[in-house]
């Protein structure tokens, strides 16, 4: 059955509320709001009873698929389970009931949490201090690159206007670099999946501000030459930027700071188990080494004379990057996660995430092409090249996976792998789930051999079938328009 919009469900005059008689003086809106801001016609709002609204949204929620429903191996997204204790903690009145404009003395607990979170994330990443302001990953990148630019400008090196980014990078990396006015230079990945040090050396110059790197890379591989790479960049005066998308692979085992990175952004909604889908909201803290601390966004949370305070007195700071103090409730949830896991627990998270990925990779590589034959980290990339030669694309197989009840992996990324399928099982899954998923994927590989047309028409068991993706991109319908009334 097709799902009607809530606008199409109601009847004029039907409602789900009853208001008491107004007991305050009535004021006419025209007297309060200037005319140019007033609309001339009534808004087209749904007119439904309470039960209509409840049934509508309950029906929609049943169409939803999330980490709480099942396996969700969307690579480079770290769709791990979000423990419910995080939600309880963030709803404690002392966190949920405060107003951001309250003075420091009235919100000591909140400031203490921000300060301790700052130091814990600094410890995990090997940085000196961390700003919790950026709203999500790409905002963290932008803030980090603004810090990089401010640092070079402070050192009278304004000519550093180029940034080097590998061909495996997340699309946000070049986008963020362009936003701060940098020119992007691409460095190629070698046959083992590493940044090629020889090529990097050639690209480095006094015009290069830095290198943006994800480690492990989006191929799910650890940069084997990271120490050499860091030296090459530092020797020509550049800085190293760490895209923290894949931090879930290394917590408690190694740290970006120890590898030579100067700036790090994290995604609390990936690595630190805060909600990811449906707009999160996210949180993208940015951390820096000691010499870059003066450039961090203000306010910096400080602890002085037994009190926590918001410090705006940072003359070199890039300024405030988000209203108030970032997505505070998200930071509380991530704090709850870190405290629940503890240091040993976080290490265990990464070890299990890496083990799960290797287990699944080794089960699948017999049936799907594995372009980089190495021990993987928390994710791995297969190619659907063999199946494509039989006329079935990675997209078709991804759609077929939905018929078997799980979310497809990331597809067609990274761009350097043909027909890419990028699996990140995370530490959440147990061995039985991974075995079952491997079984299904082998079954789909067999279907490609035996009945390719079946796979090409998938999905069949989802609420709606194959979408016209071209039409969805070219002619998106973003707004409901009421059908014309008879008298119009």
């Amino acid at each position, binding site marked *: 059955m097709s799902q009607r919009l809530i606008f199409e469900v109601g009847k004029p005059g039907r409602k789900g509320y009853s208001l008491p008689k107004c007991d305050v003086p009535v004021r006419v809106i025209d007297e309060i709001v200037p005319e140019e801001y007033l609309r001339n016609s009534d808004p087209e709002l749904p007119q439904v009873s309470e039960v209509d609204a409840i049934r509508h949204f309950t029906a929609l929620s049943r169409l939803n698929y999330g980490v709480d429903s099942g396996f969700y191996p969307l690579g480079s997204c770290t769709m791990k389970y979000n423990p419910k204790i995080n939600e309880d903690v963030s709803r404690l009145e002392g966190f949920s009931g405060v107003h951001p404009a309250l003075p420091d003395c009235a919100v000591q607990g909140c400031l203490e949490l921000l300060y301790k979170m700052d130091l814990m994330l600094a410890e995990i990443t090997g940085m000196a201090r961390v700003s919790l302001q950026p709203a999500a990953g790409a905002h963290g990148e932008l803030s980090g690159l603004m810090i990089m630019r401010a640092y070079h400008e402070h050192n009278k090196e304004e000519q550093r206007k180029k940034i080097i980014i590998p061909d495996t990078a997340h699309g946000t990396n070049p986008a963020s670099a362009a936003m701060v006015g940098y020119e992007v230079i691409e460095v190629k990945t070698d046959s083992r999946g590493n940044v090629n040090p020889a090529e990097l050396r050639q690209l480095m110059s006094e015009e290069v501000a830095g290198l943006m790197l994800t480690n492990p890379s989006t191929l799910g591989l650890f940069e084997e030459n990271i120490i050499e790479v860091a030296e090459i960049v530092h020797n020509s005066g550049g800085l190293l930027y760490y895209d923290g998308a894949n931090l879930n692979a290394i917590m408690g085992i190694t740290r970006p700071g120890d590898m030579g990175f100067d700036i790090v952004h994290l995604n609390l909604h990936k690595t630190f188990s805060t909600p990811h889908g449906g707009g999160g909201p996210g949180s993208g803290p940015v951390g820096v080494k000691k010499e870059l601390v003066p450039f961090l966004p203000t306010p910096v949370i400080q602890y002085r004379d037994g009190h926590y305070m918001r410090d705006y007195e940072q003359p070199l700071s890039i300024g405030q990057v988000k209203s108030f103090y970032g997505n505070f409730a998200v930071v509380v949830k991530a704090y709850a996660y870190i405290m629940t896991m503890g240091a040993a627990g976080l290490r265990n998270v990464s070890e299990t995430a890496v083990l799960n990925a290797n287990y699944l990779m080794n089960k699948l590589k017999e049936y799907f092409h594995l372009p980089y034959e190495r021990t993987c980290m928390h994710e791995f990339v297969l190619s659907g090249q063999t199946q494509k030669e039989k006329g079935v694309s990675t997209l078709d197989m991804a759609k077929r996976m939905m018929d078997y009840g799980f979310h497809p992996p990331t597809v*067609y990324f990274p761009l350097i792998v043909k027909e890419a399928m990028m699996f990140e099982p995370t530490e959440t899954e147990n061995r039985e789930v991974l075995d079952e998923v491997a079984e299904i994927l082998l079954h789909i590989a067999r279907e490609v051999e035996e009945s390719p047309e079946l796979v090409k028409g998938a999905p069949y068991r989802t609420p709606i079938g194959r979408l016209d993706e071209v039409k969805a*991109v070219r002619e998106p319908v973003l707004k409901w328009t009421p059908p014309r009334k008879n008298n119009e």
Partner: protein
Amino acid sequence: MKIPEGIKYSKDHEWVKMEGNLAYLGITDYAQDSLGDIVFIELPAEGDVLASGQPMGVVESVKAASDVYMPLSGTVKKVNNVLLDNPESINKDPYDSWMIAVEPTDASELETLLDHVEYKKLCAKL
């Protein structure tokens, strides 16, 4: 995979067809197949002077957005504006879907491009 004879190819999967003193440019069958369904394209303006290797436009598919590079240097003389509204014709018929026509700055650059045999070899290696 169609790789017609008599036209030139670049390593970045553009094709070049000379007609009179104009070089017509488009993307190859291999390129459109790798990109998948194309949904938007951006093209340069008439009169733009572009060097070989410079981006001359953008092709966006449901999978990814890619730059299209100049296989040779020249001045843009004609732009196929019809293509802007029907980018899917690149998927259907890549070699009839020319994007721009340029007057080459240096005709000898044409000799540095691949012929159909060389291009076929290149695609086989990918």
